[in-house]
């Protein structure tokens, strides 16, 4: 049986839709079309002289060996952040889902990091990892391990991955916890009676039933790692040393805002948008087939 809402007034549905459409137009379509326009122009910083250059900005970007390495770093960074934050969140959610004393307190504490601004979180991490003033940084150096993320690209990348993942763990945790709580107890109890141990129960029942949540989080985490980790990287490493922690979004900012090269920056924005659309489409098309919706 199909239920339909009937609107007598022809205008009302449009009116109800209007705010959402307006928001999309003003905050997405309009700036995005500006970016597309800018990406095919070369312009001075003050916008006084514009030259239409077809796809020159794109060819310049795509033939830049530094851009290719930035792509690679972004891939490593985003996958690491997505996998790490989901794995840790799932572990914590599984533990918090158990019947333990003070579960509400743990749950609240685990959600806290999500309330922090990325820059604040980054400063906290700096106080841990800075070689001179950071607690862990000093300890590592005192132990004879040469820790200095300002000069070691791998260390810098590890640090920003940790910092970016940590913030996302809370978000993933909430969703995993909700997902776990939605799994019918009766199924788990039946498996228990059939003699399945906790590990087997997790992999054959819990994990497949969680897959819609996992899939949703994979998409959200990838988008997060691509776009929202800017503040973390900006506050911790500024993309350095060298270009070791420069992700696509950081370079968009660097070229557009710092270097005043709007053409190159917009071309990268457009490329980034295309990459994200392709990525999300792939995820929905192929990963979703393996997802069990209940």
């Amino acid at each position, binding site marked *: 049986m199909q239920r339909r809402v009937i609107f007598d007034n022809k205008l009302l549905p449009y009116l109800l839709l209007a705010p959402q459409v307006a928001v999309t137009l003003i905050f*997405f379509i309009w*700036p*995005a079309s*500006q*970016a597309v326009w*800018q990406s095919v122009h*070369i*312009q*001075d*910083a*003050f*916008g*006084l*002289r514009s*030259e239409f250059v077809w796809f020159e900005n794109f060819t310049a970007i795509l033939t830049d060996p*530094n851009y290719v390495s930035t792509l690679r770093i972004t891939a490593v960074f985003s996958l690491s952040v997505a996998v790490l934050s989901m794995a840790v969140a799932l572990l914590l959610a599984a533990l918090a889902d158990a019947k333990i004393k003070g579960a509400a307190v743990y749950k609240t504490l685990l959600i806290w990091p999500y309330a922090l601004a990325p820059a604040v979180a980054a400063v906290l991490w700096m106080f841990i990892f800075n070689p*001179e003033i950071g607690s862990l940084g000093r300890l590592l150096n005192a132990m004879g391990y040469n820790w200095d993320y*300002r*000069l*070691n*690209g791998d260390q810098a990348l590890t640090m920003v991955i940790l910092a970016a993942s940590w913030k996302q763990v809370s978000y993933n945790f909430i969703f995993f916890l909700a997902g776990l709580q939605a799994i019918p107890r009766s199924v788990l109890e039946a498996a228990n009676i059939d003699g399945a141990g906790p590990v087997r129960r997790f992999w054959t029942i819990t994990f497949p039933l969680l897959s819609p949540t996992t899939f949703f989080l994979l998409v959200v985490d990838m988008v997060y790692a691509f776009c929202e980790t800017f503040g973390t990287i900006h506050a911790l490493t*500024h993309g*350095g*040393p*060298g*270009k070791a922690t420069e992700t696509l979004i950081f370079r*968009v*900012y*660097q070229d*557009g*805002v*710092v*270097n*005043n*090269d*709007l053409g*190159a*920056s*917009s071309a990268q*924005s457009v490329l980034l*948008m295309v990459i994200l659309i392709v990525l999300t489409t792939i995820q929905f098309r192929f990963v979703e087939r393996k997802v069990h919706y209940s």
Partner: protein
Amino acid sequence: MLTRRTLGLSTAAFALTVGLSGAAMAQKTVIDFWHGLPQPLGGQLEQVVKGFNDSQDKVQVNASFKGSYPETMQAAIAAFRAGNAPHVVQMFEVGTATMMAAGPAIKPVHQLMAETGAALDPKAYIPAVAGYYATKDGRMMALPFNSSTSIMFYNKDLFAKAGLDPNKAPATWPELVAATKALKAAGVACPFTTSWPTWVQFEQLGAIHDTPFATQANGFGGLNAELKINAPLYVKHIQMLVDLQKDGQFKYGGRDNKPDGLFPSGECAIIQGSSGLRSRIVKEATFAWGAAPLPYWPDQIKGEPKNGIIGGAAFWVMTSPKRTPAEYKAVSEFFTYLAKPEVDSKWHMDTGYVPVTFKGVEMAKASGFYDKNPGADVPGAQLTRTPTTENTMGLRLGNLPEIRNIIQEELEKAFQGQVTVQQALDGAVQRGNVVLRNFERANKN
């Protein structure tokens, strides 16, 4: 998606609120002045502005802090695009070429002064300062205000501990290398570091050794300049830093002024950085310290070491479709006040920036400031020790902030041992030249 238009919109909205609150003040001409100095310097600058506001009753200058220098530049550019540029903006020295190429977006100071019948004598300014902000034929494009230069600070206590003469700073690079060796042998974890790696170890190095940083007289001759920082002097110098770093005699402390804190905390025995670091050292250091000019390479120099170049910022006048002659007149009165030697020398003595006018230097001298503060005259002396040449006037390169970042990135690759020094500097030249060509193309008329 980050676009300039959206930035411009929010700035415009902000400017509107400022404008409305300004309208409440009766009949005074209101001038918006955006600056990029954080506390405590920002507060001191606002005191200077207050001094002007109190000195007359026709003009009200509203100073507002817009973030760091690059952020202030972004805000000004976005505001201009939205048709709401501030009357006056403080712009760091490396933004000079970008501002000069901005054409109708700015009003050159010499033109402003001529139109409003005010006087501004370029010869009143120290040549290393005036040259940075003047056209090739000597007309001032911006009003010089807070200028610094880079010098060396050293920890006298650690020098004594290492058996070095605490009253004699290393004057040449070989002497400095020997000193860092002694400091390391005495157990100092960080004998030597540098702030502003590009400004100090490239731009100043080139000026002091009268060696070009770029062709076309460091860009003063035209937009078609090309970088020259893979010349033997630079390779030798950076190789020395990389070698020292490997031996633990030099510590790379990060980009821009990030390493500043390593000296006042007592961790590093020697730092080369902005003369403006002085006020922080005075406040925080718990040891005896000294200031000295930057060292030089005796075998890379003909005659005496030349004057260093400046850093810091100048004040630019921006245009807007709705500007009135009265507003320009008010700006010119503001500038005339700022150019007074007493304002200049007070600012210098309060902050650690160098005096920018000859009269300002004399007034500071006459007040006995240098007798009470030994070493405070080092930056001024280093700036004025020789007549300027085309290699010591400063740099006039488009998008220099971007080039500075490129150099820092390539430098970090060399310090990590990923590439040789020659490869790093060749890479910096190649990438930097791309930036210069893009700027040339975007700004051709």
